[in-house]
């Protein structure tokens, strides 16, 4: 029987360690590698030019590598549900392969495609390679609930077998046996689009700090390991001015797009460690970054509302302020706090910022200063941040805003002091806010405190050339700590004076050992937040002082006029999202409706 395969690239934009692609090649007569995107909507999607460029460069790189194997990448314009029926018929496809997508939207989309393939008599093969572990296995081992603390997650991971060994890269011999004839007009139909085709005008190519693609990823991996070997220190490096800048050994965007296999990274780290520290087995902390990623994927995989506060069982309900003006100032780097503005400028220009810088701006936007919902920040990151993945991005934002995962909320970052401690020279600020370059170190983090003469001498008067600080940090942290306390005390039913004890501790964290049996109460995470261990330590008159009328809020929910829908300023119109390749899309609701819409229109065409 003839086997004609299509391998569908989404993430996993690489030829090394690509088990699904190996499946496509296995015993096949022909193999075609496709990537599906809809340029029609691309320009208007809520995805910034840097992310698009990174994607296109990664696709170019794939195409170049496939050419070397006498094949090509087929970039097919359209939506998967429209495209596949056409491809199945045209190419007489019998086998479809792709990498497993753990995210709720991806699972739903893939389910629909698998069903469609079945109707066309096409067998589908799906392989897990975007994460180190089988996430469902982790959930199963935690009594069928995703672990909600990183420690618990680590405890489970430490009992798992090592991740599967990475597979070798595709060889010319493998490709030779299933070669297809590339049409002369291939580029006419299937070339990698340019940014112009996607609707981005006048984009200078020179800007890109991060170059997409597997080739670049592997070079960076080598440099990354070389540096680790050179330093021979596997502790997390202490942050300084240099760590704030884009590093030629940074890997996170490459892991995000799958230009680099996480398992390759994992095993390379492990081997290096074993080589340098002969007797020790590597500690989990060696894989810090990789495990955080895994943690958030696990938390999100069964929670379609992971990216919102409403109807999200793990998210604490916080009465965030709705303030589009303040949000815009933050997003555009006009807060008047140079440390915050420099970070947001770097993010916009380059698409990457250091994780502590992420903490700083996330804290500032949410619980630290502006008291604006983490969902708004998440959407800005989604547009600008190269390594923003639906699960990881939403999870990090919930973490940093203390909306989930049992965080102590007193850890607030000061928009002046934090930066100053990290980079006392202020060179980072000067690099991204050139207006402030002539400020003396003493005032560069708080230019509004500089005497007028100093401001004039530096050619940058606060309030004229650079904005005044949009908020009084001391005042807002006073208010916000109270608000957080209100929220958390209600959650934990704690009425004592202790600030620290307001945060509930989760049962799973306290449990000394893991139990294998799945005797757990239910499969959902609902209420996990409330399973706290907390007894009231002080009972005072206060207890009656602020009666919490649980009923009233429930009542108003239903009685009140049309519900306030969460649609922060930065969100795009639902259908505008269509342009971003579907597997990278993030808004569940609209994506789902889109799928329905398209399947309807495709049936009507037939």
């Amino acid at each position, binding site marked *: 029987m003839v086997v004609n395969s299509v391998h569908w690239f989404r993430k996993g934009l690489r030829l090394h360690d690509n088990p699904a692609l190996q499946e496509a090649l296995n015993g096949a007569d022909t193999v075609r590698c496709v990537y599906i995107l809809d340029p029609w909507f691309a320009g208007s999607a809520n995805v910034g030019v840097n992310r698009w460029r990174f994607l296109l460069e990664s696709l170019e790189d794939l195409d170049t590598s496939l050419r070397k194997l006498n094949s090509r990448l087929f970039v097919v314009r359209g939506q998967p549900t429209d495209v596949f029926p056409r491809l199945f018929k045209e190419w007489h496809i019998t086998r479809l392969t792709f990498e497993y997508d753990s995210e709720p939207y991806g699972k739903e989309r893939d389910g629909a495609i698998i069903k469609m393939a079945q109707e066309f008599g096409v067998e589908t093969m799906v392989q897990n390679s975007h994460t180190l572990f089988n996430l469902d296995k982790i959930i199963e081992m935690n009594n069928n609930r995703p672990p909600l603390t990183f420690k618990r997650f680590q405890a489970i991971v430490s009992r798992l077998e090592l991740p599967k060994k990475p597979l070798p890269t595709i060889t010319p011999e493998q490709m030779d046996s299933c070669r297809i004839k590339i049409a002369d007009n291939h580029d006419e139909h299937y070339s990698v689009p340019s940014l112009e085709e996607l609707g981005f005008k006048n984009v200078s190519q020179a800007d890109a700090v991060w170059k997409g693609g597997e080739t670049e990823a592997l070079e960076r991996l080598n440099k990354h390991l070389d540096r680790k070997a050179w330093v021979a220190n596997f502790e997390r490096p202490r942050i300084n001015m240099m760590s704030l800048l884009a590093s030629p050994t940074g890997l996170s965007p490459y892991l995000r797009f799958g230009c680099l296999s996480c398992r390759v990274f994992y095993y390379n780290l492990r081997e290096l460690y074993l080589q340098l520290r002969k007797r020790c087995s590597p500690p989990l902390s060696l894989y810090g970054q990789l495990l955080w990623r895994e943690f958030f994927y696990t938390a999100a995989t069964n929670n379609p509302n992971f990216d919102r506060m409403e109807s999200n069982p793990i998210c604490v309900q916080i009465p965030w302020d709705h303030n589009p003006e303040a949000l815009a100032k933050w997003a555009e780097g006009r807060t008047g706090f140079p440390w915050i503005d420099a970070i947001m400028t770097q993010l916009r220009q380059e698409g990457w910022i250091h994780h502590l810088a992420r903490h700083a701006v996330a804290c500032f936007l949410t619980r630290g200063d502006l008291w604006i919902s983490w969902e708004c920040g998440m959407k800005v990151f989604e547009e600008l941040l190269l390594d923003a993945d639906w699960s990881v991005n939403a999870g990090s934002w919930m973490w940093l805003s203390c909306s989930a995962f049992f965080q102590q909320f007193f*850890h607030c970052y000061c928009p002046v002091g*934090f930066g100053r401690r990290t980079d006392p020279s202020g060179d980072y600020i000067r690099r991204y806010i050139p207006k402030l370059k002539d400020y003396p170190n003493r005032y560069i983090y708080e230019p509004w405190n500089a005497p007028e003469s100093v401001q004039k001498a530096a050619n940058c008067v606060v309030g004229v050339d650079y904005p005044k600080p949009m908020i009084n940090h001391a005042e807002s942290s006073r208010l916000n*700590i109270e608000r957080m306390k209100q929220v958390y005390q209600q959650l934990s039913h704690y009425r004592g004076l202790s600030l620290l004890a307001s945060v509930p501790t989760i049962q799973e*964290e306290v449990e000394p050992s893991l139990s294998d049996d799945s005797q757990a109460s239910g499969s959902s995470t609902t209420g996990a937040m409330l399973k706290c261990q907390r007894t009231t330590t002080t009972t005072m008159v206060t207890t009656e002082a602020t009666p919490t009328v649980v009923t009233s*809020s429930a009542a108003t929910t239903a009685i009140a006029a049309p519900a306030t829908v969460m649609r922060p300023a930065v969100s795009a119109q639902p259908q505008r999202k269509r342009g971003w390749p579907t597997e990278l899309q993030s808004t569940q609701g609209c994506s789902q409706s889109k799928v329905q819409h398209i399947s309807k229109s495709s049936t009507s065409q037939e």
Partner: protein
Amino acid sequence: MMKRARVNITSKCQGFPSADGRIKRQKTELLGPFLAQRPAEDWGNLPHHVVLQIFQYLSLVDRARASSVCRRWNEVFHIPDLWRRFEFELNQPATSYLKSTHPDLIQQIIKRHAQHLQYVSFKVDSCTESAEAACNILSQLVNCTIKTLGLISTARPSFMDVSQSHFVSALTVVFVNSKSLSSIKIDDTPVDDPSLKVLVANNSDTLKLLKMSSCPHVSPAGILCVADQCHGLRELALNYHLLSDELLLALSSEKHVHLEHLRIDVVSENPGQTHFHAIKRSSWEALVSHSPKVNIVMYFFLEEEEFEPFFREETPVTHLYFGRAVSKDMLGRIGLNCPRLVELVVCANGLEPLDEELIRIAERCKNLTAIGLGECEVTCSGFMEFVKKCGGRLTQLSIMEEVLIPDNSYNMEQVHSEVSKHLGRLWYPDMMPTW
């Protein structure tokens, strides 16, 4: 016949929700024939106390729906017991994601249940209109006996944007009419001295709790008047600029009950330029000898250089929270002069590790059971020494992983296992995602 009668009853009834007429009608039509045929099993015949019992488990909206079923249920809906506590939520769609209490419901409450309200709170978002709406409701609560009143801003302090006269007149309506207020929470509002006088004149026998942090229109004399007259006051929250030796002495007079809880927010109005007065050691001593168990909670939001006047002498503070960076000096003084300290939270410090200061705090503050350290660098050895000295009495220990500096004696893994050993439970530093 019976059906029609019922329809008449329900349509005449003013029962809430009036906006929900359609549901009401549907329900009556649905139940009507059934009930008409078998009157003996009419759910409406359930005794009041049974329905009341059930209603207490229902949300307000479910209660409201149920109240549309029949006259008896509607009667139960309006039983005063169900209206003692109420939380008004006032939000604007432009500024909040939260829903508001329906205006019809508010009207119903003012008309029919004002006299039943005892525990009332208002939650408002950052919009001035919401705070104004709260004041409007307050000024209509004339026939009531409110015991606790809370004005809570969930985002920005919007009561501060209401005109002072509007706010004060609304608040005094409650003060004058209630006459048995025991708890008042009015942080971040423009309450002033005259309105406090009205409060004292009408509620001095009953007032137990007063929270008024960041109320800039109150003077030290204004709060002193409260302390002088309200001898039952057990809890007080205010800003440092209202704290005076006289106030502490007034709270320590023989006539006064033991104070249980004093919260002080230390905020500077002109950051970096405010000079803070000192409180005499004797005044603190008077307070503690009158109320030996008093909790004194201080929240600091100051610049480093403003800490100069604090903790120069022994201070009986129990809970300390530093919202911004603290100098090593200041922490050193805390170790020396705060023997009653129970909880210490430090958000940040300067550039040098805090080792010695922490160790001294562990040695001298024997009651310390909770500590939280944010951006405060400590060496692993210093931290271990601190934990060893405190031992199992630390019920809360929170430090960010990234500020622990590994040294020759301890790495992170060892810190985790050693600290767990000393605390007698599994302990980890707080982590932030490295992504």
